[in-house]
């Protein structure tokens, strides 16, 4: 199977940190499908603020997971490593629903794995919201 590509518009920063031709071979149909799906999801994401935020203990776990486990590819400071930077300015022009889907289902053809076995949808929404506003530091 050829690797396919998510429908994000790539910012210059993203373009720098991705592999052309290897991880991003376009497939129009899939792209369209994902656009549609993200459109639908955007609707539900507006409600994200009304979704229950994780408990204090769980949010600590999530922060640790993002900082440490996502950090092993994206950097502890989320400035990027083998994976792209996850700072607000790097994510701003990407649809939040796409980000959530990337977290839950990974990006086929890239090193990004699906985290769905370890996260609920609401938790993925919460992580996206935190990433977009600047991810919290771990409390000591």
């Amino acid at each position, binding site marked *: 199977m050829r690797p396919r590509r998510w429908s994000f518009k790539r910012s210059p920063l993203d373009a720098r940190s991705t592999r052309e031709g*290897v991880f991003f071979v376009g497939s129009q149909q899939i792209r369209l499908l994902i656009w549609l799906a993200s459109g639908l999801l955007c609707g539900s994401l507006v409600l994200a603020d009304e979704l229950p935020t994780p408990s204090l203990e769980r949010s600590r776990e999530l922060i640790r997971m993002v900082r440490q486990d996502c950090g092993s590819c994206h950097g*502890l400071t989320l400035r*990027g*490593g*083998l994976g792209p930077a996850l700072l607000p300015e790097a994510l701003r022009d990407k649809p939040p629903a796409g980000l959530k889907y990337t977290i839950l289902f990974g990006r086929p053809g890239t*090193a990004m*794995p699906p985290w769905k076995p370890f996260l609920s949808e609401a938790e993925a929404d919460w992580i996206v919201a935190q990433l977009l506003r600047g991810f919290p530091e*771990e409390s000591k």
Partner: protein
Amino acid sequence: MTIPKTILFGWWMLLSLLLPLAWSGEPPLRGTGDLGVIIERSAGRILIVDTSGNNVIGRVDGLGDLSHASVVFSRDQRYAYVFGRDGGLSKVDILRGALEKRIVQGGNSIGGAISQDGRLVAVANYEPGGLKVFAADTLEPVADIPATYGDGKLSKVVGIADLPGDRFIYSLFDADQIWIADLRDPKSPKVEKFNGIGRAPYDGLVTPDGRYYLAGLFGEDGIALLDTWQPQRGIQRILASYGQGEQKLPVYKMPHLRGWAVAGHQVYLPAIGHHEVLVADTLSWKETARIPVRGQPVFVVARPDGRQVWLNFAFPDNGFVQVIDTLTGRIIQTLEPGKAVLHLEFTPRGEAVWVSARDDNRVVVYDTANFAKLAELPAASPSGIFFTSRAHRIGF
């Protein structure tokens, strides 16, 4: 009763002799061959440890972002060169426990290597993609070799190791290339490039004899092999079955490759995505066994004598460490040193192994003969453990 004046005078003489000794602060002479450093990754600090006493003997702060930090040692085993994720390169005097010099040489780096003669330290950078070389004594820049490919793009550099002859070998993640930079004449480095080695090399290793370079591929199955004694033969693809295979499994942490994977005439490689260790013969480069293990292996490290291979795992099995007996090819022990085991390092001859458990904030020392816990040291989010015995190994 009064004390005779002569006795008082004697005491006074003794005190005046001893006090200056106690206050002079001059530490007793010692060697550094049994020392090492532990990265405290969120604190930007390293611990200096003594593997004979199983204790912490010093701390050095102010080393920046140490997520994914790695360390090489000067050949006199006195200085540790710490490569930080933030592009920082720090030279630490582990004998005095002091930061000697620190520079920020790039935006985002992954690791480095020290040359055979110990005079050059090379840093592999993600950002800006390429290799930068510094004088080991002063950290003054010596050479800058951008990893340019295609129409001027820069590739992330991974899998750097030293080769005999003051050369460095490394892979270009974005360009599917292996480069050898020859720095015998540091002012005009010569670069030999190998193209089309396979998609997305993620790490590499040099065998302990300095002869073969193996690059693990993320974008496809198999391993790219270069015989550096006969580079004209080009890249060979070995272990076609090594990789994610038909059914690509998610990888929660990239495996790490280094010369420690070689035990005797066999190399033990972490499978990608699969819960397996692959064993291959280093003469034929054919697969000889697959050992089912607890999770996705990250570090697969042979004890220096090659009789055991210890491994840790990616999330979510990162609380375990397993031990393979290389004679039978079986798992003989499963340990739980703590939450989020990130790294393990053997003492120079392997009677003990140090294991870092990040989320339990401790480093656990095990006896490798009977798996008894020898010591437990508190450390803040410990990650990499590096002992000075690396100074004298090719490919470290």
